């Protein structure tokens, strides 16, 4: 065989991208072990760090599932948060009725999400382009309003979950250990999902999915009934996202229709694009960046505004510069900065964080 040597073998295995991926995953995975140290060093409260980062992990799982259909399949689903809601409501409703076993709750959450994805996908994938965006949005709104109308489960106000899923006592569901245990569980699920997505997108199935994204008609002309493959990917993504929803309900110990609101679906798309579409680890970076911005952008802005105030005061004197508090209050409006960052990413860094890493590696 001449020239079968793929270029991949000639490239060094340890690229900048791979190095960053390993470091990020290691930092995430080891957090429970160095978090106490962070607290003693006065950097961040241990439990706060774990809580924020658990949320990052769970939404990274959801973003990974969206990435499968959006990044690799080119399907702009604007209703992906609905599966978070389905997974969450499965756990919440079962818990509400006293069925607390995670071995029942989780499989059911996944199954239910998959079934809904099958129905939604079978109808939505008949449409193209912007109509697809809108029909997935419509189905998500449909289920959102089901949640709003569910009086027995709190309707608009949602439902508090009194006990987390019980995994036959294997994972502590109360006491101080439960935060660490749940963090480790979420991390393990994320790693599993990353592995699964990696295998999927490189398998024969994945090649069809990516081919259909690139040129659906050509794939049909090659003999692939692409609808089935896209639908299968849609169902897998829904199932994984349902799993994320089940985890999220456990994490917040609360469910409400707001989990499914269309802006949550928008957040997921933002995470995927921010991290880099069609890269396995992209959604993890995206979820990290998005949630850390959400969490720390106000603080960061306060810092910058504080400097600006002091600087202005030094130049033009105390009086005209105004009170420091007035300046710092501007940090409440951090979403303006977030929106601007988003627009800047769309206009100037379309490949997301992962491709920036790739560029840095080459440079």
């Amino acid at each position, binding site marked *: 065989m001449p020239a079968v040597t793929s270029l991949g073998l000639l490239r060094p295995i340890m690229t900048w991208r791979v190095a960053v991926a390993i470091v990020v995953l290691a930092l995430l995975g080891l957090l429970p072990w160095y978090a106490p140290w962070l607290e003693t060093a006065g950097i961040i409260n241990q439990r706060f760090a774990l809580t924020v980062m658990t949320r990052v992990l769970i939404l990274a799982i959801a973003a990974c599932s969206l990435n499968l259909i959006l990044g690799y399949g080119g399907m702009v689903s604007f209703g992906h948060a609905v599966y978070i809601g389905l997974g969450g409501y499965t756990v919440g409703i079962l818990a509400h009725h006293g069925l607390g076993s995670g071995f029942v709750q989780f499989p059911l959450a996944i199954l239910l999400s998959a079934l809904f994805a099958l129905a939604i996908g079978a109808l939505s994938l008949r449409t193209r382009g912007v109509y697809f965006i809108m029909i997935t949005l419509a189905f998500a709104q449909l289920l959102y309003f089901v949640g709003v109308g569910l009086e027995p489960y709190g309707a608009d106000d949602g439902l508090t979950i009194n006990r987390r899923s019980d995994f036959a006592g294997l994972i502590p569901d109360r006491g101080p250990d439960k935060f660490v245990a749940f963090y480790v569980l979420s991390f393990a699920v994320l790693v599993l999902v990353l592995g699964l997505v990696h295998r999927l997108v490189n398998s024969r199935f994945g*090649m069809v999915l990516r081919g259909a994204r690139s040129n659906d008609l050509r794939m049909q002309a090659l003999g692939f009934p692409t609808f089935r493959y896209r639908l299968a990917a849609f169902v897998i993504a829904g199932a994984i996202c349902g799993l994320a929803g089940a985890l999220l309900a456990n994490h917040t110990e609360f469910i409400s229709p707001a989990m499914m609101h269309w802006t949550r679906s928008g957040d997921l798309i933002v995470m995927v694009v921010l991290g880099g579409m069609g890269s396995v680890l992209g959604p993890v970076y995206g979820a990290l960046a998005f949630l850390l911005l959400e969490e720390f952008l106000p603080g960061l802005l306060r810092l910058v505004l504080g400097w600006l105030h002091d600087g202005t005061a030094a130049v033009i004197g105390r009086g005209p510069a105004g009170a420091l508090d007035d300046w710092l209050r501007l940090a409440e409006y951090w979403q303006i900065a977030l929106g601007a960052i988003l627009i800047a990413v769309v206009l100037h860094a379309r490949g997301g964080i992962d491709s920036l890493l790739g560029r840095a590696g080459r440079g």
Partner: protein
Amino acid sequence: MAEALLQIDSLVKRFGGLVATDSLSLDVQPGEVHALIGPNGAGKTTLIAQLSGFLKPDSGRVIFDRQDITGLPAAARVRLGLARSFQITSVLRDFSALDNVALAEQARQGHSFRFWRPARRDPALRNPGMLALEEVGLADRADTPAASLSHGEQRQLEVAMALGSDPRLLLLDEPMAGMGPEESVSMVALLRRLRGKRTMLLIEHDMDAVFALADRITVLVYGRAIATGTPAEIRANREVRTAYLGDTEV
């Protein structure tokens, strides 16, 4: 006359008031290269789209190997052995040349609900893919992204992909469109190598190529076949000369 491989039976396709295919009947015999010529707007590409399942005819039938395939979706037709290439190059641009032909091979091997093994390291796909690239002379470009291939190379890849499903009938929609003279020569050479091995329905504007390759030629004008015959017969046909060839001096 032997049983036709493809039989088109009074096919009609209208777009609003325009009749793109006007009760067209046509047959393709096994082993022949059948060329379809006609001025722009004669309905050639519309016909290919109906034959390959991308457009539904308003009436009429398409029979392939004694089976009525008129209502069959595109992918199912490919699996019966009817493959097409596109007039506007439509290789998968994000993929390498080898990926493109490997996908054709993958389609041939049956369903792709295989979720685990990496497809790019599967010799069952890569080796036949390399052979297909060698057949069209692209072996040394295997790892080049399809988007970076020259136009002529993309056209060759296009044909290699259509061949990948090992079709019994190949529908070629202007394989030489947009090619320079040198590229055309190598495409004609490629098609000549395939001649006798594959049955082909060829749409082409390049008359030199058509008359060099075709066993039979059908002339299409306004969606209707005005003549079918050997190249010599077509050359001699007065109706054809006035309707179409009149000013091209063949």
